[in-house]
């Protein structure tokens, strides 16, 4: 699968001649429009004196591609880009040892060799400069595509664009300064709704709704709605404090120098009787629990949005972990968009010599010259260069370096961290143009969106793009600079796909910009009358893989139906009558391994495949998703997409595309997760290929995907009071820089069960359990997965009741920090991915599963248990002041119809969708001031926006909505739902605490739990 290659010593110039058999591709003339890094340049860079690197020294300059000499060096396929990431014990995983050692001789010989060959090749290029239309009698059919309107007006591009560029003109992402933003300001993330915002505690209002309509009251809703929690807490607190934890003294002893925070712990462990407590939700969205660390460590610890552990106190032994019956794992969002990030350029990246951990804030300095690794406890030397602190420009303060002051840092990596020159940004778009696709009409929106975003595509001057369309045949587009209009090359031999022309299909965007625009303008009309119903996705993907193999990059596939031709064709597996069956769901796994194997091939060549499925029929996402899952791509699904009949999906597609095209991207990435000796990684969740026990291979990394990791404890952690986790993501930025982003999380180790419970993070636990349940439902069955989720709650609460809680209470009790656990699990069981009983289309279910696996925690929690707020009574009380806007902070409400009232308007935030539900008897002022309609009856049924009115109420509502949407990766859809509208079904599906066809109500669920626990 991975042919051994010997990448460096021999630049594979011959490759262009040994492509497909000549009978097939004749235009293959050995001139390749490739980029050429003058590596020798870098080599000649004088070595900086190690002791006093001037703070303004630029990173070793990489010369930009030299367009006139744009020949040479085609990237070798299957390069083990990252073999050096973790040098000696790490084999170059995708290549032979030769290749691995080959890099030693990387600079000099190769550079010379290239130099020798370069002129020759240029000559060759001139000689072989082919007739542009490929008159060399190609055997494949060439179709010069139907004259696009006005296409002839474009002449060659060369005249209009200057072919030469100054060597230094590459815009470098990180400019000259040695580091940026060394000062961490703690409140940078506070703008995010879920961020580290100060915990406002507004006056504890009476939050019952006196005007609640009887219609919305189910059961004994009225009792004690005023503030039952107060009453209960009042009763329990004395008992709790009267019986102090016996382990308090031992705890502080175990924590050594850490100053424990017993109050926090007691609060977290305070028992809550779930059956009596009716208001469990906090006023604001839940925050991650603070690990029980000393304030110094807590201050520098990694942000919980990036790195979070299900147990913020790590149990000492596996036995203790088993006893607690809570899952141990990490939730990671390593590449998320950060507002500030210390970027460090230095000649030596300081790492532990034995475990290769990057130096981080949790290491200890034994003296000026030595530091002790916090993961393997080896004592290392501090290199001379590290003694100099570029922030204060002082010498001899290694502990003040930005690496040691920040838990999240980014290094600019040297050539030690690359096995080939950093790849350029390469994007290939593979578009379905069959009849079905034309009917759905996505092409127009795609082309428009791409045209709008062409200048926002991340990349430098080397950026290349290509297009490929397919129906029952595969169409390539020659966009070679100099053509008057794009050329379409059709390959109809889909059983043995080949690339008709090697150098003109992936073109430099800058050089061929006009041609690309031309093509995008013409594409929608070209296939308007297509009658071909078949879809040869498999061959198209194979072709895309061949096209991208030399460089790596991103393939975006747009597919609208079940692949029906060539390799990878799929049968329809869904039986619509089984959609609501409660017996079990079939076909959650792939039907064939074609897409998986293709994904692995792609992953090996550093290609990621992103899948956009816009299908109205069953398209077997379970199988198709494999192509993205194992190549670290993303999956988007738009059920029943139609450009006219389904405007909601169309808008979502447009918005998603805008974000998708312009978001950051990292190429040829790997992520390694290291943890304190004794801990080990059990399973990974997300989209990637696991290359070894702690190394993920990510062909591309994007800021919107997250990962989950299950951990286990191999050896006892008795000797250590702290456990650390370090995730290091090595990637090539879109500007061609090799960078390493390092996150380090530090948590205390505890020896008591009660401490383990006190540190439990209910949101993280829910997310990890969801990931585990999805694995289980694919490998075993959905029923098993649901049972496992249920058992997780039963076990967790059972252990708490029997061992930790000192109260002999009847009923269902939970520690305060886990009081939402049953609620979240119930919500999880009613999610599309895991629900039974109600009709769920297989593709939608599979997509929900894929989303669970890749969504970051905040987003996922909003999907599982959406946030609901009352909007008509919104006030400035307790509001958040950000810059010059005032953001009101309404209370969170339980997701139950009994919390709704006819005279209110409620906002439901489901992550990707926002619903504003408007009751029938809502205040006229609200309708007038916020919705801009005279009365309830005149609210349009499909309102998707609220007008900008100059009223106080409107301003508040809009400020709140904007604040909610701020920093959300994909902008969400907004619907105004009238109480009597048909769309209210979608809204009420989210009322997970009510009894529905999907399952029990919350109260019944608790009764059920109690029954199970007493068994």
């Amino acid at each position, binding site marked *: 699968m991975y042919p051994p290659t010997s990448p460096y010593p021999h630049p594979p110039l011959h490759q262009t001649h040994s492509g497909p058999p000549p009978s097939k591709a004749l235009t293959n003339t050995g001139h390749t429009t490739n980029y050429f890094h003058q590596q020798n340049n870098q080599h000649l860079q004088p070595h900086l004196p190690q002791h006093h690197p001037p703070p303004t020294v630029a990173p070793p300059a990489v010369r930009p591609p030299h367009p006139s000499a744009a020949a040479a060096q085609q990237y070798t396929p299957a390069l083990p880009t990252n073999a050096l990431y973790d040098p000696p014990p790490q084999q170059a*995983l995708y290549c032979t040892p030769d290749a691995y050692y080959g890099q030693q001789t990387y600079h000099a010989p190769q550079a010379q060799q290239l130099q020798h060959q370069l002129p020759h090749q240029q000559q060759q290029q001139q000689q072989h400069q082919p007739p542009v239309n490929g008159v060399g009698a190609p055997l494949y059919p060439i179709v010069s595509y139907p004259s696009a309107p006005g296409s002839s007006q474009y002449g060659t591009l060369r005249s209009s664009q200057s072919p030469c560029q100054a060597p230094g003109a590459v815009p470098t992402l990180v400019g000259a300064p040695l580091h940026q933003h060394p000062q961490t300001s703690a409140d940078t993330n506070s703008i995010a709704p879920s961020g580290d915002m100060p915990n406002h505690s507004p006056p504890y209002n009476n939050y019952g709704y006196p005007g609640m309509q009887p219609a919305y009251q189910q059961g004994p809703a009225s009792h004690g709605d005023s503030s039952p929690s107060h009453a209960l807490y009042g009763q329990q607190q004395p008992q709790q404090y009267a019986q102090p934890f016996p382990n308090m003294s031992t705890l502080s002893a175990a924590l050594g120098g850490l100053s424990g925070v017993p109050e926090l712990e007691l609060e977290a462990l305070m028992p809550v009787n779930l059956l009596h407590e009716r208001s469990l939700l906090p006023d604001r969205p839940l925050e991650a629990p603070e690990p029980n660390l000393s304030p110094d460590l807590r201050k520098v610890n990694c942000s919980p949005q990036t790195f979070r552990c299900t147990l913020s106190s790590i149990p000492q032994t596996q036995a203790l972990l088993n006893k607690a019956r809570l899952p141990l794992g990490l939730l990671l969002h390593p590449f998320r968009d950060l507002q500030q990030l210390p970027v460090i350029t230095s000649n030596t990246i300081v790492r532990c010599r034995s475990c290769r951990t990057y130096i981080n804030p949790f290491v200890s300095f034994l003296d000026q010259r030595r530091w002790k690794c916090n993961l393997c406890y080896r004592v290392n030397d501090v290199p001379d260069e590290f003694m100099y602190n570029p922030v204060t420009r002082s010498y001899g303060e290694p502990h003040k370096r930005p690496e040691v002051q920040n838990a999240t840092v980014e290094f600019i990596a040297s050539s030690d961290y690359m096995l080939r020159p950093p790849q350029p940004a390469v994007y290939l778009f593979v578009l379905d143009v069959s009849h079905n696709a034309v009917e759905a009409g996505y092409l127009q929106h795609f082309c428009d969106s791409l045209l709008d975003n062409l200048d926002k595509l991340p990349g430098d001057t080397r950026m290349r793009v290509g297009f490929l369309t397919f129906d029952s045949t595969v169409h390539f587009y020659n966009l070679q600079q100099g053509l008057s209009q794009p050329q379409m090359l059709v390959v109809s031999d889909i059983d043995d796909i080949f690339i008709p022309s090697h150098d003109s299909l992936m073109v430099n965007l800058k050089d061929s910009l006009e041609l690309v625009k031309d093509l995008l303008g013409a594409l929608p009309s070209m296939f308007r009358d297509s009658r071909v119903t078949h879809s040869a996705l498999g061959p198209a993907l194979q072709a895309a893989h061949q096209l991208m193999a030399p460089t790596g990059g991103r393939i975006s596939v747009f597919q609208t139906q079940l692949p029906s031709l060539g390799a990878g064709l799929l049968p329809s597996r869904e039986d619509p009558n089984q959609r609501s069956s409660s017996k079990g769901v079939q076909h959650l796994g*792939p039907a064939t391994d074609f897409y*998986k*194997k293709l994904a692995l091939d792609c992953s090996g060549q550093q290609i990621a495949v992103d899948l956009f499925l816009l299908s109205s029929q069953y398209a077997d996402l379970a199988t198709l998703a494999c192509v993205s899952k194992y190549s670290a791509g993303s999956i988007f699904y738009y059920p029943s997409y139609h450009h006219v009949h389904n405007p909601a999906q169309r808008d979502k597609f447009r918005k998603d595309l805008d974000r998708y095209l312009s978001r950051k991207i990292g190429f040829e990435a790997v992520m390694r997760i290291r943890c304190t000796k004794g801990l080990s990684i059990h399973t990974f969740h997300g989209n990637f*290929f696991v290359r*070894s*026990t702690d190394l993920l291979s990510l062909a591309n990394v994007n800021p919107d995907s997250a990962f989950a990791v299950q951990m286990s404890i191999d050896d006892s952690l008795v000797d250590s009071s702290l456990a650390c986790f370090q995730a290091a993501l090595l990637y090539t930025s879109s500007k061609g820089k090799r960078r390493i982003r390092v996150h380090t999380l530090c948590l205390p180790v505890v020896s008591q069960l009660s401490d383990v419970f006190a540190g439990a993070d209910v949101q993280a636990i829910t997310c990890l359990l969801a990931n585990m349940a999805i694995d289980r439902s694919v490998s075993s069955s959905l029923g098993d997965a649901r049972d496992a989720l249920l058992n997780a709650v039963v076990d967790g609460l059972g252990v708490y009741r029997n061992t930790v809680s000192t109260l002999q209470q009847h009923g269902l009790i939970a520690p305060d920090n886990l009081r939402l656990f049953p609620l979240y699990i119930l919500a999880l069981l009613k999610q599309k991915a895991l629900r039974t009983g109600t009709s769920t289309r297989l593709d939608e279910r599979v997509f929900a599963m894929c989303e669970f696996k890749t969504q970051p925690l905040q987003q996922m929690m909003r999907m599982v248990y959406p946030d609901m707020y009352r909007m008509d009574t919104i006030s400035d009380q307790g509001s958040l002041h950000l810059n010059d806007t005032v953001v009101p902070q309404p209370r969170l409400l339980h997701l139950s119809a009994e919390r709704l009232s006819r005279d209110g308007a409620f906002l439901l935030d489901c992550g990707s969708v926002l619903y504003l539900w408007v009751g029938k008897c809502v205040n006229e002022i609200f309708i007038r001031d916020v919705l801009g309609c005279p009365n309830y009856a005149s609210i349009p049924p499909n309102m998707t926006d609220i007008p900008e009115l100059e009223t106080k109420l409107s301003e508040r509502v809009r400020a709140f909505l904007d604040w909610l949407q701020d920093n959300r990766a994909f902008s969400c859809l907004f619907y105004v739902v009238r109480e009597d509208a048909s769309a209210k079904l979608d809204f009420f599906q989210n009322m997970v605490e009510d009894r529905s066809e999907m399952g029990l109500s919350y109260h019944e669920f608790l009764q059920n739990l109690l029954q199970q626990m007493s068994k």
Partner: protein
Amino acid sequence: MAFTFAAFCYMLALLLTAALIFFAIWHIIAFDELKTDYKNPIDQCNTLNPLVLPEYLIHVFFCVMFFCAAEWLTLGLNMPLLAYHVWRYMTRPVMSGPGLYDPTTIMNADILAYCQKEGWCKLAFYLLSFFYYLYGVYLLFLLCTLSCSGAAVFGAGVQHSWFYTKRAPRTADIH
């Protein structure tokens, strides 16, 4: 004649089990390499997968031989492993080629641990059955020689019986 065919089966099984022991050791080493990060899972699966069916077929082969030889006890002892192999291959992940191991799931700690355990268990089973077959060969030839040459040979001991067994078919011919 029947018992000589049985003896032949045992001898064959003895040799093939020796081969299977090598398979099992190879299996254990391969998974150990995976665990210690020396190998890429894709490569490792590519080397392991082609070996799965031969191993199973070898085992099936001498099970069939024992069936033909009507060695019910031996067959019974092998049945669990045979059934396990069938089950294991039926529940393999969706794959187009032969084999059991999927590079995308193999690094999962549970599966890795399972495969390792499977390797050790099989090694133990094959080792035990190796000695069992050795004993079977010995016993059968002992019986053979006993019936052919009488009780006098019995005292010859283990070392000598091997020589007798070699000659045993010939003595049968003479008779």
